[in-house]
């Protein structure tokens, strides 16, 4: 089996809403270099933005003394994105958002970020930090060369 060489890009973001766009742009640039089609780049941008917003709001709880990390690993057939924060990570998945329940006031209008992440990338896992913090979400989007 031949070893494939991967390329790594790391970004460190302030814990401030809006900076998820820096992560989005970086991830999109790497994905374009890898040859992802435009629609998959858009999927990745939204998934990365939502992962960073979760890290800023829930992981780091808007604490501007902390930062959010993003590590991109580009392999020949897939792009892996890890978004790291100083939170404890998720203990359980939130329920799938239901537009009818939202429209009838039975659940809040928010709470769609994780649903969007899961729907837009090929793999996703939330990994709690071993020390009770430093958790991360790992996303993978696969390069389907036949579709590219």
């Amino acid at each position: 089996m031949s070893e494939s060489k991967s390329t790594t890009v790391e970004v460190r973001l302030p814990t401030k809403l809006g900076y998820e766009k820096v992560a989005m742009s970086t991830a999109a640039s790497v994905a374009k270099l890898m040859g992802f089609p435009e629609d998959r780049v858009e999927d990745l941008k939204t998934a990365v933005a939502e992962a960073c917003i979760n890290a800023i709001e829930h992981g780091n709880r808007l604490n501007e003394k902390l930062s959010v990390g993003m590590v991109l690993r580009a392999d020949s057939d897939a792009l892996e994105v890890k978004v790291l924060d100083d939170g404890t990570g998720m203990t359980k998945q939130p329920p799938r958002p239901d537009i009818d329940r939202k429209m009838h006031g039975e659940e809040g209008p928010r709470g769609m970020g994780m649903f969007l992440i899961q729907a837009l990338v090929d793999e996703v896992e939330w990994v709690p930090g071993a020390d009770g913090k430093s958790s991360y979400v790992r996303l993978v989007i696969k390069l389907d060369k036949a579709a590219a």
Partner: protein
Amino acid sequence: MQSETKSRVDKLTSPHGYPVAVIRFEGDIASTSKDAVIGAYQSLNKETAKLVMLDFTGVEYINSSGIALIIQLLIEASNSGQKVYAFGLSPHFTKVFTMVGITKYASLYSTQADALASL
């Protein structure tokens, strides 16, 4: 860092003579966009503006907090007996709006002309 969302309201008439209020957005739609989204909607006269269109032509970025504001608008419109239409979304955000179910409560069109012609 979040770009400011701008919005303005135009009053149009459909080809069949129906009055339509169009809320045109520009910039990002995110958590900071409440005034531009909900404020612009609440400035409409609910007795006369029964048909409301949302113009996303000038919007490049919408996140889940922005989608939540759109849902909040749809809830208020539904409670006020208004119908909401949207146009100008990119193919990606058309997919996202469809995925989260917004299309059950607001019809999506490519262009303003298409949306007006549907009335």
